[in-house]
């Protein structure tokens, strides 16, 4: 088998596991709902506040949910020493990383797409084609979070920081990407105001370029460093 077949096999295994157990997706979606609820009480979110804090609320909720979901990346392999089995098999560390990262990416994207209607409902978004560029923001944002998160999730189990490890390390590194996500989302949602609906608001390209750059850097750096994490 060649590397992409390794990746596909590992990814298929993770997706099938999730399909049967639903251990990550359902709790993550529910958690996003709860965070939206908490923010609602904290900030008295009304129609007027949407433009100002809506995107920040959405991304904070997604980020917090993803940090909890990402913890499961490798703990799911704890039973029967599955991780040792994978490491002993002729699968390269890089393939393992890419498979795990791709899985996390898909989970995050799914969570974002499922919770978007909820967010739209709470914030009274009008449905329209102007929301289409959000897909790009979701894809790039998820790439950043999954790249960094998968690397740190692999280390978390071995530190006394335990469940603190992933958020304490991921959050500072992801904040610049998060800023771009929030700014881009603000621009897109602002374009939905009746009267001047536009598919590509001015300045969106800059934020997406920043986000894409973050995604590429985070992914390749994490891919490179993953070998050192999984040495034993």
């Amino acid at each position, binding site marked *: 088998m060649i590397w992409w077949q390794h990746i596909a096999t590992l990814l298929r295994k993770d997706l099938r596991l999730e399909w049967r157990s639903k251990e990550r997706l359902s709790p993550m979606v529910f958690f996003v709902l709860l965070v939206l609820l908490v923010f609602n009480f904290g900030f008295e979110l009304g129609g007027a506040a949407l433009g100002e804090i809506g995107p920040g609320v959405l991304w904070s909720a997604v980020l917090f949910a993803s940090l909890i979901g990402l913890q499961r990346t490798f703990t799911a392999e704890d039973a029967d020493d599955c991780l040792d089995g994978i490491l002993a098999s002729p699968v390269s560390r890089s393939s393992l990383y890419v498979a795990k990262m791709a899985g996390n990416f898909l989970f995050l994207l799914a969570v974002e797409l499922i919770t978007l209607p909820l967010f739209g409902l709470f914030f009274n978004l009008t449905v329209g084609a102007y929301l289409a560029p959000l897909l790009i923001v979701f894809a790039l944002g998820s790439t950043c979070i999954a790249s960094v998160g998968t*690397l740190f999730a692999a280390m978390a189990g071995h530190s006394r920081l335990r469940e603190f490890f992933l958020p304490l*390390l991921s959050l*500072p590194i992801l904040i*610049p990407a998060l800023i771009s996500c929030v700014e881009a989302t603000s621009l897109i949602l602002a374009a939905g105001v009746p009267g001047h609906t536009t598919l590509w608001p001015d300045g969106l390209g800059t934020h997406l370029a920043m986000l894409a750059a973050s995604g590429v850097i985070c992914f390749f*750096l994490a891919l490179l460093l993953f070998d*050192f994490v999984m040495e034993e």
Partner: protein
Amino acid sequence: MTASAAPATTNSTTTVRHTGLSVAVAVSMVAALLAVFLYAPTERQMGAVQRIFYFHVSSALTAGTAYFFVFVGSIGYLVHRHDRWDRFAGIAAELGILFSLFVLISGPLWAKPIWGVYWRWEPRLTTMLITFTTYVAYAMVRAYGEPGERTQRFAAVVGVIAFVNVPLVHYAVHLWAADQQLHPPKIDLAPGMAQTKYLCHAAFALLFVYFMRLRLRQERLAARIDRLRLRLAEQA
């Protein structure tokens, strides 16, 4: 090891070099202080409070250098797997945090009379705070890991990836829109101000090297004591 072969000479040379460095740090620091308060001309608009600039910028430069050393030390460790590189990265991170704290304390003190508030979420300030938190997290990885090879390896991995945001602090004044900026992209200084600035840079660089050497020596000695203890336990 050379230390065990000729302990007396090595120790005395180290001491002489160390004393020399201490004197250089003391002299340059006093000179820097005198220059800041007596030599540098008073800025026309901001007045005396602008004198914070010299230590503020020097601390920022030193912190940036320290974070670069963490990056280099981490790569060094991953390549060579020697404790020396790990200690180097760890100590550089400590000093980076320390000098960042200088920046984050002196900045608001300067900002209060000029911007009217202690804190503004403007690009350079925000990116500096992000970088600071990143290295505090790095220090926690070291502090909360079981002592040993794995923690050193994990710290090195974090030390490499932590550096991705450091260039943002430098480029923050250009990357974000000008209307969000409160830090100037470029500063034109009077000759007396520029000379004072470079003197402060030199004093802080010496202070950094002094701290670095002091802590490296301390860590080296601690490691040696550990080894001796282990040998003693084996003999007993």
